């Protein structure tokens, strides 16, 4: 953007790696060095990176559980209210609240609400959709991150962040290329 001051504080520093093994090693050492505000980027999920960065987010499961329970009670309440309160139909004296007949719809709504919770919970926690993100300012990132290269970015918000020192640290990890990430 033109109107931005040229000396804006950077978003962070980004290192590029050629293979997943180097990325895992780099993530492990970055964590060990004391950095916390950093992120790894890869063109496919790598479980070893999750371990190296100590990522374990159980909130998606919890959201899905809550979504499923909402669906369950919505399904039951809807059918009981319609069949026994709003529109009772006497068919040969059978009970209005014939719950076994309500199982299929309740089941489907439980699945439906859980699935919505899984998708929108995941997107919400990931902060997506996000039309702009600073990492895309790095040309190498846009050209390779979703295809064949592995990146690690330490963010300026980290307490330990110091442009020169963080750069030198990433250099020491065997990065193929280092780029400053503009805000």
């Amino acid at each position: 953007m033109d109107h931005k001051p040229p000396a804006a504080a950077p978003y962070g520093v980004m290192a590029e790696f050629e293979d997943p093994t180097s990325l895992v090693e780099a993530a492990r050492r970055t964590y060990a060095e004391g950095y916390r505000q950093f992120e790894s980027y890869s063109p496919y999920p790598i479980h070893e990176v999750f371990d190296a960065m100590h990522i374990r987010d159980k909130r998606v499961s919890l959201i899905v559980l809550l979504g499923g329970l909402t669906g369950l009670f919505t399904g039951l309440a809807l059918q009981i209210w319609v069949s026994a309160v709003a529109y009772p139909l006497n068919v040969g004296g059978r009970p209005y609240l014939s719950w076994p007949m309500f199982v299929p719809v309740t089941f489907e709504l439980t699945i439906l609400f859980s699935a919505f919770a899984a998708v929108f919970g995941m997107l919400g926690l990931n902060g997506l959709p996000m039309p702009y993100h600073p990492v895309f300012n790095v040309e190498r990132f846009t050209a390779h991150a979703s295809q064949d290269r592995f990146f690690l970015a330490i963010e300026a918000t980290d307490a330990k962040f110091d442009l020169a020192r963080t750069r030198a640290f990433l250099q020491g990890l065997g990065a193929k290329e280092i780029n400053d990430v503009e805000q």
Partner: protein
Amino acid sequence: MDPHPVYAPPPVIEPGHTFNTVTEQIAGIVLTRRHPYSWFFGVFVGFMMTMMLLMAVTWLLIKGTGIWGVNIPVGWAFAIINFVWWIGIGHAGTLISAILLLLKQDWRTSINRFAEAMTLFAVVCAGLFPLIHTGRPWLAAYWLLPYPNTMGVWPQFRSPLIWDVFAVSTYLTVSLMFWYVGLLPDLATLRDRAKSLPIRRLFGMLALGWRGAARHWERYEEAYLLLAGLSTPLVLSVHTVVSFDFTIAIVPGWHSTIFPPYFVAGAIYAGFAMVLTLAVPLRVLYHLEDFLTLRHLENMGKVMLVTGLIVAYGYVFEAFFAWYSSNQYEQFMIYNRMFGPYWPFYWTLILCNIVVPQLLWIKGMRTSPAMLFFISMFVNVGMWLERFEIVVTSLHRDFLPSSWGMYWPTRWDLMTFFGTIGLFTMLFFLFIRVLPMISIFEMRTLVPAAKVKGAKAH
């Protein structure tokens, strides 16, 4: 000669591939301007048949269901036959994407994307029939959906037809979300590879700003796994509910406890046949032999053989229970099915669904794409005939001989049915043009370079 004496399955991706070759080959199909002439031919045929469908539906809306061959006693015919046939075809897509994922079958990776697309388009074709089967679809709103209307009426939740509405609409919605979530990382790849700005913008919007962050991947994988876990009981429930449409009625030939498992097996059988029908030409047309290997085709052949045998078991036990029940209506129904006026349908069904697929016992047949295509065509026809048998032969001669009748489809029935095949074809050809038909990011995980050195296998 062979360094590995112990049997190891052949790889699911041909050796020599890297991240780049996988990405280029699959994304290239979407991002190129050139396309095989057969693609244009396929879209053209599909489009013309879709126009035929629109014509048949328009005439139906003008005249009503009188243009169809349905009449008492067969008040339910092509609409429900085609509905069940299409929805069954859809089931293989979910089976491949969800159940095989939970079972950690890595060969699913190269077929799950287009199988899921097949599911979506099959469900779209299926959903058309219940909508139009009354000839007055605008009335369906208050028959089917629970919303407060000025008449103060509500749907009957004890009816399997309402269960069907909930099951099928949930199935369509969840399949669509599952498919889209699976597409997200690939849309990001297409965004980054696209050369022209409008295309990049388009894929950029669809990719929602996906950037492959590790924290995102972790939640993504969790959500994807949960969706697979949710889709698995869902897909089994959908065809179970579809079979309830029949079993809850007391008509001989419908009122049977074997229906739910037999319908689910039949759905998977029909679906795998359709996946093979699509996969065999696709791999030749787009040179995907490296990703859709003979091992994939052979495995699909095996699944077809197993589910086909379950279906055969269903046929045998339908006949056995009719005899064992000592119920004259049940016994007459099965006799009428085999030797009544519709006997050629029954025996063609047995030929297509039971006799021909026995060829799959032979390894040479399972590893020959041409033979698999040939057998899958038989199964496609056979599974349609099965639904025809179940619907028509049960209804046309039931309890009261004075109300017996015959059913034959009219040209409008046939135009609607073949029209949906055209709609399916057109949607599928458009899909392979605009979206990657194989999951690129999952294929990357199968490339040898994707392994982290020194890590335990997981």
